[in-house]
Structures are given as C-alpha cells and as structure tokens.
C-alpha cells in the first residue's frame, strides 16, 4: 500500500470545497480591527474530491471490527450493529438542540428514560445516570459521590481508595482526581483479591474500594460478597468498574454483589462504536446509599411526560459532568442495541462471550501455550503468558502482537495487566464465529513455529502493514506534533 501524503501537502493556495460554504464573503467591518484575526489560519486547501479520496484511502489503513477479528482484552470489540448508527442518525434526532424545551424532545427522552430503566435492571442498581461521557468519567462521578457521602456525614478521615494491583490505570488516576490517596492491594495466586491484604488495608481511613469483576485477569472474584462485607464494615463503599460487564450481563448483577456505585462502558457491553478512540458513554448505576448525590441532569418521568431532573430535584448532587446531558448519540445507539437484544439476548451475550473465551483458552492451552490461571474458568477474556516463548525463543508478547497483524488479526491487549509477565489479554467477544477463533489459534501456532525457525523474522514484524515497526523513541524525543509547512 502506498503512502498517503498529508492533506496539507495536497493543497494549493485558494482551493476549498466551494459547495460547502456561502457563495460570498460577508462584511465583518463592524467588528473592530483589534478583535480581528490578522493572519489566515494554517489550514488545508483542497477540493471536496481530494478530501473524500484522502480520508477514504486513509480509512483503509485501519484495522477495525468491520474488517478484522479484534480480540483486544478489556475492550469488548464486538460487532457494532449498523442499525444502531443509522437510527441514531435520523434527521429528527441529529438536529435537536440540547437547549430545546423538553416538550419538543419527548421521543428522545423516552429512549433515555427506558435506557436508564433497562440498565438499572440488568445491573441491579437503584437508579442510573447517563451523564458520564466515558468509563473514566463514570469512575470520577462514582468516586466523587463516595466522597460526597462521607463528606455529608462529616467523616473527613477517609482519605484512601483501595485498588487491586490488577486494576486499570483509570482507577488510581480517578481516585487522585477525587482527592484521594491510592492504596494498592495484591492479587493472590488464584487470581482473586488477597483477602488478608484487604483486611489489613481497610480502616477508618478507607473511603472505598474500586473493583473490576470479572477482574482484568479474566476471572470472577469469587469472594466478592465477603469483600463487600469487609469494606462496608470498615465504613467504606464499593465502586464497580463495569468495563468487564459483558462477561456477566444477565448472569449476575453488581448490585446484588454489594456494590454501591458502578459504571457501565456502553461502548463495550452495549456495543456502541469505539470510533478510533471514542466517543463512549459511562453510564452510572447507583445504589441506595448514594442516590442523593447523583450527577445531573437525569431523565425523570411524571405520568407520561419526561423531563430533565436537575439540582432542584437532586440538591445534594455532585453536579454536572458536561455542558449538556452526556453523549446523547452514543446513548441512542446503546438504547437501540439494548432493545434489539432484549432480556434473552442480554443473557446470551454473557453466555456466548464466555463460551468463546473458554473455548479459545482451551484451544490455546491444548496447543501448548501457557494460560494464566488454567485452573480457573475464563470470564469473557483470559490471559496467555508468553514468558516461556520469550525465554526459550527470544520473542516477546510484543513480537507476537505485531506478527499477528500480518495474519490479519488485531493483537490482543499486551502487557496488561501489569502483574503477568509477557501477557496477552485475549477477549474474543460473542459475535465471532468458532471458525475465526480457530483461525486465530492457527496463527498463534504458526508464529511460534516461525520464531523457532527464525527469531529475527518474527521480531521484524509486521511486514504486511502500511508501515513496518515504528520508532516510538524518536516520536517521543523529537516531538513532531503538527505539520509545519514543509513538504512531506
């Protein structure tokens, strides 16, 4: 595949897509000169066809669910139904101004309200807020509510959030943003939270704990009820990081496990697209203890009418997380998806995500790969450690990852969680066929064979991508973050 010039390098002075702007320039003379821009902004100068062609060609340089198996652990890269997109983009929905009166948006708000209800049911929580714009913002809101709870009780000794060592980076980062210190606790040999360490960690300084269940190690935390008791008895609250909810959707509910607040990555479990980095939506589920602190706004229902609940109805709210009501378009996609799945569909999501993960795990184990925690059930994902291959053959998890790209498979998550050496976190999701899983196993086996034959060949991968392996050190050292006018 040929290299694609930068859009700037395709330009010629004075060119632009003429159909897209008013036919004439307007008079701005009434704006005093001191406020006016003196020099024209550096911007591409290209035609409409050039834009279409450039970005169409660039798109072809991406792996995506729509083109490749994408078993990126913890990311739930499953099929994003196309109807979710087209129905969320109906003109009547796209064109609605966020400040338009509720009376004009009852159809939209009905969707939001029903989505809140469905999410509350499937998570076992009391109430749901759709305000957070991603998982991390859901975490922020949840921990901020925990803080508001302790503050309201005048309990200002609680300065710590407990986080297992397997946790995603957003968990400790969030705790800090909420003004807490982070206390890390280890995972035991079976993959569960080390109960001894937990008991030692809790105390009057404990504001709460953040847990992912199933954990990022790909197993279900079996003593979750005990954990809840320990933390609650110490006066702390429990935050559930719902990034892995796909594994237990309809099979078990965080609310029943004793969590006080949770977020759901709708862009994972409810299959809204990742869009090359976002947008997502991190709906919050809230238990009894924290209801008073819900972020605003939230959709409420009175009789058959829907309205936005604000601080008038939730006076102790932690406040607002975005200028408007969250990522509405993402939420509409999640709503359409949830309705198409329905009750049985939701349960089956967890069942088949789990079936695929356990099948793939057993196949890889049978082929001689070192599965982490082989004695455990995989949840919707599992870990292979390539430590033996790294030691014996000198090829790392990173090398396998790059070489998998050549085989047409997106790499699993590599080197996360941090506690497993040379790990690949593999999440096939429920929407992939058995044949695709088998193909992935074949590729893993083939790469190992290649490594046995020619280590350096594998270490030189990828070969079939638009570029070979990139120099990341140079990227970070000789920062080149924008086009500076030179030809490429």
């Amino acid at each position: 595949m040929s290299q694609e010039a930068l859009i700037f390098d395709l330009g010629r002075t004075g060119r632009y897509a003429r159909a897209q702007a008013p036919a004439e320039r307007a008079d701005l003379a009434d704006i005093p000169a001191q406020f006016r821009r003196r020099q024209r902004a550096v911007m591409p100068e290209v035609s409409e066809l050039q834009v279409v062609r450039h970005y169409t060609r660039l798109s072809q340089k991406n792996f995506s669910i729509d083109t490749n198996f994408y078993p990126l652990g913890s990311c739930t890269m499953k099929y994003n139904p196309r109807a979710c997109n087209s129905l969320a983009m109906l003109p009547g929905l796209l064109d609605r101004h966020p400040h338009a009166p509720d009376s004009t948006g009852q159809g939209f708000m009905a969707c939001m309200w029903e989505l809140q209800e469905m999410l509350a049911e499937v998570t076992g929580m009391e109430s749901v807020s759709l305000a957070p714009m991603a998982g991390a913002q859901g975490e922020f809101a949840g921990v901020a509510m925990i803080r508001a709870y302790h503050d309201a009780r005048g309990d200002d000794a609680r300065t710590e959030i407990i986080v297992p060592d397997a946790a995603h980076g957003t968990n400790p980062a969030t705790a800090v943003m909420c003004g807490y210190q982070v206390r890390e606790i280890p995972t035991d040999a079976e993959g569960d939270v080390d109960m001894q360490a937990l008991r030692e960690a809790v105390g009057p300084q404990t504001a709460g704990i953040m847990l992912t269940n199933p954990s990022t190690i790909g197993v279900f935390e079996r003593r979750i009820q005990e954990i809840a008791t320990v933390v609650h008895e110490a006066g702390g609250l429990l935050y559930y990081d719902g990034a892995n909810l796909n594994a237990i959707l309809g099979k078990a509910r965080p609310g029943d496990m004793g969590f006080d607040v949770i977020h759901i990555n709708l862009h994972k479990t409810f299959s809204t697209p990742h869009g090359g980095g976002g947008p997502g939506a991190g709906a919050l589920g809230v238990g009894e203890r924290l209801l008073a602190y819900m972020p605003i706004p939230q959709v409420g229902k009175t009789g058959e009418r829907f309205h936005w609940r604000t601080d008038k109805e939730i006076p102790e709210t932690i406040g607002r997380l975005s200028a408007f009501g969250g990522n509405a378009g993402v939420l509409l996609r999640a709503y359409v998806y949830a309705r198409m799945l329905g009750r049985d569909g939701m349960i089956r999501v967890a069942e088949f995500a789990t079936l695929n993960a356990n099948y793939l795990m057993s196949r890889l184990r049978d082929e001689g790969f070192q599965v982490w925690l082989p004695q455990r059930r995989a949840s919707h994902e599992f870990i292979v450690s390539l430590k033996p291959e790294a030691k014996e053959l000198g090829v790392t998890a990173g090398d396998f990852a790059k070489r998998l790209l050549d085989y047409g498979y997106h790499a699993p998550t590599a080197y996360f969680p941090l506690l497993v050496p040379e790990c690949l976190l593999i999440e096939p999701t429920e929407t992939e066929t058995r044949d695709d899983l088998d193909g992935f196993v074949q590729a893993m086996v083939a790469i190992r064979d290649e490594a046995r034959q020619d280590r350096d060949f594998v270490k030189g991968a990828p070969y079939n991508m638009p570029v070979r392996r990139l120099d990341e050190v140079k990227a970070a050292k000789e920062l080149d973050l924008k086009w500076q006018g030179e030809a490429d």
Partner: protein
Amino acid sequence: MPFIPHTDEDIRQMLAGIGVDSINALFDEIPADLRDPGLPGIPAGVTEMEISRVMNARATGDILGPCFLGAGAYRHHVPAAVWEIATRGEYYSAYTPYQAEASQGTLQLIYEYQSMMAGLMSMDVSNASLYDGASALAESVLMAVRANRKSKSGRILVPDTVNPLYRDVTRTIVGNQGIELETVTSNASTGALDVATLKQWDGEDVAALVIQQPNWFGRLEEAQALTDWAQRNGALVIAVVNPTAMAVLTPPGEWGANGADIACGEGQPLGIPLSSGGPYFGFMCCRRAFVRQMPGRIVGRTVDLEGRTGYTLTLQAREQHIRRSKATSNICTNQGLMVTAATMYLALLGAEGLERVAGHCHANTRQLTERLTDLKGVSLRFEGPYFHERVLELDRPTEPLCQQLASQGVLAGYPLGRHDKRLSNALLVCATETVTEADMDRFEEALGHALARAA
C-alpha cells in the same frame, strides 16, 4: 441472540472442546445466590424492523423549525461527505490506535487534526480531544495548576462571562483537589470584563485567568489586555473559544504580547450535529513548553524500520495506562470519531470556507438583532462588539415566552434568567449561516405576536 453466530453444532463442539456439558457450567465460579437474576424488567428483544419503527416515530416527534438557540451548541451546515466517510467501518469500529502499524489511518488523521487545530488557534500543539468543551475547561484548569510552577495558590480567576454550565462542570471536576475558583464580575452594562476589575488581584498569587471569547453573552472580551494583565501577574491564561469564530477573530496564540498558554473549547461547531447535546468533543491546545502537562492522547510523526513516515501515539507517559495515579488525567476513551468528522469538516472548508461561514453567522446575527430590536418591547441589553450571539432585553420574562414560541416551532433563544435572576427578561439569540430570511420573518412575526399580547 441477534448478533451471535453460533449454531447448535458449534455449541456442542465447543463445549466438548472445553470439556463441560453446558454453557451454564462456565459460570460455576459465581456464587449460586448471585447467579441468574432473570431480568424480569427487561422487555423481550425486537427485530431491527421493529426498533426502526419505534425510532422513526420518536425522531419525527422531535423535528423542529428555525433555530435561534446557541448558548454553547450551534446549528451549522454539515457537509454530507463528513459523516458518510466518518461512519465508514474502518473509522467507526476501530479502537484507540494502540497498535500503530494497524491504525495508520486514524493516526495520520489525528496528526492532521492536531495540525489544523493548532493552526486555527495559532498555538504550538494540540491534543487528540477531550470529552467536551466544559470538561476541557476543567482539564485546562487542572493543567494550569500543574504547569504554573510559580503559583502555589491553586487559585483560578473565572469571570462571570464564562458559560455558567462550564463553570458548573469545572467546579464538579476540580472541586475535590483544593482548587479555588474565584469569580470575576463583569461590567453589568457591557456584558464584558473591564480590565480594571482585575486590579484587585494585582500582585496576588493567581494560577490562571480564564477568558472566554466570544463570551457567554456573545460579546468580545478585550483578550489582549486581559492576557497581558494575567501574564504580568504570573498567571497563565486559559482561553475558551468558539472555533468557528477563530477563523475571523484574533486566535488565542496571538492574544497579548505572548499569547494564551492554554486554549480549549467546544469542537461541536466543526461538523458535529447538535444531537441533543452530544457526543461533541473538547479541544485543547497549549504552548509547547507545557506539552508534558497536557491531558489526553497526542499523536506524533516518526519513521518506521525502513525510514518511511508513520504516525504513533506519543508521550504516553502522561497517561493513566502508563502513569496510573500520577497521570495528567484519568481520561482514556476520548471523542475520536468526532475528531474524525471535524478533521474532514476543516479540510473541506479550509480557512476561506470557515471565514465565510463565520462571516455569515455574524452578518445574520446582526440582521436578526436589528430586525428584532425594531419590535416594540425589545431592546439590546449589551452594546459592543459581538460575534454570532447577542443579548436582547424584552419587556417580560423570557422563559415562558420561549416555551410559547417553541410550541409554534420557533426556538427563540436561551433565557438567561436560568443562571441569573437579574437577567430574567434577557434572551440570548444566535443566527448561524443556516438561518434564512424566511426563518427570520417567522421569528419576528411570532415574537411580535407574542409581545403584542399583555405581558
């Protein structure tokens, strides 16, 4: 199981491969009392045809007439090419470009986006987006506190001409870190800041001053003088700007003698549909010296093994997945697809096109407000330079009036009384390039009728 491909035969063989009898057996590590809640409250699944019918009906209920509402979200023309291409599966269904070699499409696009945004703002560097304009301001405040090594106070001056919703969000997000947001009061008759007002903080330890341009009332602030005051006093300047306006107004990088330190704002005007408030995207640019304090993803240009140009995420040591509790922010998923759309929007319009759009927004707003202030009971609340929003003063409360006009299919504007009782009769109106003469006729007529009735 609408999206699950397994046949009965697949299931049988896969279970046999795993060595269990049933799918349920795979859940045997979940304590029995937690298992299989049943979900009686979730309705049965529907087909795509059925949900299409529901959504079509609901979308139709929402269709609206002319829109004079702005207040942070603006109805602009969005070229058809933008979303036809942004929703291509390769953009739409890809993850964050962690595997650079398999994500060159998204990565090059983000590099181009960063270049365009830096160009529009006249700033050194841009990140790859934050959630929205309001949260971008909150992150800017956090960043300013980190970046301003000389300041120990964590004290931020926030004028009351900054969008009150942005102020709310900032309070929510920075509130737990001991950062103090201090209000600067604007001139009640001009709806803008007087530089003189800032004198009271002369010589004090202030981490940053926030300047919104155009401000919440649509008025243009004296950004030059305000910036100079702040930087003289050791405070950083955080610009919150409308990106369309920057095509014609002095961009943050050129404010005062040295330019703003951080520029942020709402990216929605750049090709993102109104969509009831989201998803939009927050943009953020800064001085090169501060790039390691910036939150969010950043893409850099580099070379591959063979010396060919390529693009990759860089400076990841700022981010939560590497730095965990020491990260610049907890942000992970951002608003990638919106940036994809905005990049195409900017590429289509270019500087010339964006200037035309901005020019027509201004001209239409001028025309609209001239027409409306001819009505009895309507006057201009704030005189002075503006971009595409202005505040009208009516002879009665605007909140009920707006409801009334909405029921006639006209979104009349934003009732400012929602945030300040003293502005109960004030209406913030906006006319973008999408507004036609006929739209203005309809507004004028509807408002005229409404005002003709006793208040």
